[in-house]
């Protein structure tokens, strides 16, 4: 990039203010790196730094990069440049009641070191792992949680394949003029052997929405771990949590360390363990994300016990919309494992007709089953409207 000749830019106090402002934004959770800050200062030079509006727009255009940033930016701007909200700024209504401290407990001493393949562990510690796999998450001790993390890390999550529009070389398919011609060069311009290509297949996007209301407390932690494992495995996975409102946590979960990822996520969520209004949250999802494309042709997984404090009608309508958009809708309800369970919770009953696969997700074995269902393998007869 060509540089403008160094010149007397905005007066130093302004520059210092700008830098402090960007720092404040960063502390408040807005990812504005040094390159953005430089751009901000450049923008100020081009505008009138004495005009409040100009400063506002210069910052908004250069320091924000998604819609979610705008609200934070506005509040920071008011706080900093107008001194209305004081100098401290935090994300609104953050109530962190979600702690993962006990997950970092040292695993049991007897743990065998992992060899190259994750398989090894399973064989060596067959018996305890086997018990663990069947045990209900709600009954886990903190040591077992730590153990579970390893199992989760080995779980592969990827959506069922679909045809992509990208092409790849193949023995037969559509004609590939580029490679044919390359080959023809070797035979004096005569295309002796024709080359072909065909559409590549790609895994479908997986969207997971995890209910974090109080009634799900014993499961949501593990299920979030499960989502985290999916997000960092590099597959196309989107993660949301449902409480009284919907929060997207894909970005927060994208940190390799599970503990950090989950604490980032809990920072982003404003309503841990409150009530659930699944219907409203689903509506928000379909309106804001689903209909625009995120749910189109995807595998959508909802992890919830179906206790909805809102209107069941709303949920039914939204599930119908979602079902029309998605390739497959999977509902995971930990309560399903209880003997004699019937989907009588109003929300659950309203949603079921629009669900393709209905699973339990209360222990590791059922999560494996979920992973298979996501990948499109058998065992789909399991669920459906029943």
């Amino acid at each position, binding site marked *: *990039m*060509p540089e*403008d000749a160094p010149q007397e830019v905005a007066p130093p106090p302004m520059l210092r203010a700008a830098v402090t402002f960007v720092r404040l934004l960063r502390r408040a959770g807005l*990812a504005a*790196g040094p*390159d*953005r800050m430089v*751009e901000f200062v*450049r*923008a100020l030079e*081009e*505008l009138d730094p004495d005009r409040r*509006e*100009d400063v506002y*727009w*210069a910052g*908004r*255009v*250069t320091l*924000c*990069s*998604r*819609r979610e940033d*705008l609200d934070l930016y506005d509040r920071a701007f008011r706080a900093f440049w107008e001194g209305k909200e004081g100098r401290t700024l935090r994300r609104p209504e953050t109530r962190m009641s979600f702690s993962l401290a006990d997950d970092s407990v040292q695993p049991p001493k007897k743990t065998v070191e992992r060899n190259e393949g994750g398989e090894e562990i399973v064989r060596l510690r067959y018996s305890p792992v086997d018990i663990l796999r069947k045990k209900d998450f709600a009954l886990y001790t903190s040591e077992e949680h730590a153990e579970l993390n390893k199992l989760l890390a080995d779980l592969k999550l990827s959506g069922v394949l679909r045809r*992509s*529009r*990208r*092409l790849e070389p193949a023995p037969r398919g559509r004609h590939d*003029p*580029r490679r*044919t*011609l390359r080959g*023809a*060069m070797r035979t*004096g*311009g005569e*295309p002796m052997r024709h080359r072909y290509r065909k559409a590549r297949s790609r895994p479908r996007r997986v969207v997971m929405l995890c209910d974090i209301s109080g009634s799900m407390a014993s499961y949501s932690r593990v299920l979030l771990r499960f989502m985290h494992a999916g997000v960092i495995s590099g597959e196309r996975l989107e993660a949301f949590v449902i409480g009284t409102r919907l929060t997207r946590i*894909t*970005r927060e979960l994208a940190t390799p360390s599970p503990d950090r990822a989950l604490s980032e996520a809990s920072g982003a969520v404003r309503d841990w363990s409150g009530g659930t209004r699944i219907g409203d949250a689903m509506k928000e999802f379909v*309106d804001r994300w689903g*209909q*625009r*494309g*995120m749910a*189109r042709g995807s595998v959508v997984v909802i992890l919830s016990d179906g206790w909805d404090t809102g209107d069941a009608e709303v949920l039914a309508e939204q599930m119908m*919309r979602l079902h029309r958009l998605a390739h497959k809708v999977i509902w995971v309800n930990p309560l399903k494992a209880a003997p004699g369970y019937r989907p009588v919770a109003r929300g659950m009953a309203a949603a079921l007709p629009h669900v393709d696969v209905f699973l339990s997700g209360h222990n590791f074995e059922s999560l494996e089953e979920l992973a298979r269902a996501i990948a499109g393998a058998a065992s789909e007869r399991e669920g459906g409207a029943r």
Partner: protein
Amino acid sequence: MSEAGNGRRGALPPGVSRAPELRERLQEEGYLADEGLSTAIFLALKLGRPLFLEGEAGVGKTEVAKVLSRLLDTPLIRLQCYEGIDVNQAVYEWDYARQLLHIRTAEAFGAEEDRQRFEDELYTRQFLVSRPLLQAIEHGGPTPPVLLIDEVDRADDEFEAFLLEILSDYAITIPEIGTIQARRPPVAVLTSNRTREVHDALKRRCLYFYIDHPGLALELEIVRLRVPGADERLARQVATAVQELRNMDLYKPPGVAETLDWTEALVALGAKELDEALIEATLGSVVKYREDQQRALGAGLQLLTGTGGA
């Protein structure tokens, strides 16, 4: 400020050196931008950065690129993104049919040294078909072109990484030919409907602006400006009704594009003011989901005619 004074980076239209002036010029070209958007465009031009526009469908994102090309009097080069778009469709492709013909011609000539020459010529500029990105980089006019990369969220991440490279260096490398560097970087406008989150690295290259639905006053001005044939009373009613529709919690709230379509439909029907029968007949041009239409009709048409249920 003279054009030369704008420096190498910027590509401001002649006679514009400050943001409010640009806003006026945009308006003269038929685009009403609020202060935020016009400032964003000003900075993008002045700092020579791509402009990344997000917003609902129909709020006028694509229009920004079009009006810029008119304002700068320079061609608009448009790349419509879609899933699976790749280098062959976005940057360049070899003209295989012509290449084959060329080889055949060489054979007809027969002489060994000629054949060698013909083969050497095979991968030269004359057999290269430029697609939008290469066209934008190669553009040789006095002013850089406007490069519109539309709905970038629809392309996949492989392509995004590739775009990032082009938007950083404004250069394209073709293995058989070499690197082609833009004389002056094109004015790049990227739009996204947010069907998925575009990668941060790409956004970091750009100035970001989220275009919201306009408020009543701005929308009314847009209607007046773009559908001059509309009666003042009709224009006001339409703008008010659309604001009302946006508050109705529809699946697809109408954008400015729909407002204009609707006004044009009404003008075509010779309407001077809205009434319930007219709305029922033309609702399809502004509300495009069946469920939404039912909701709008259910809410009562008198709400939309602005007669307040009288």
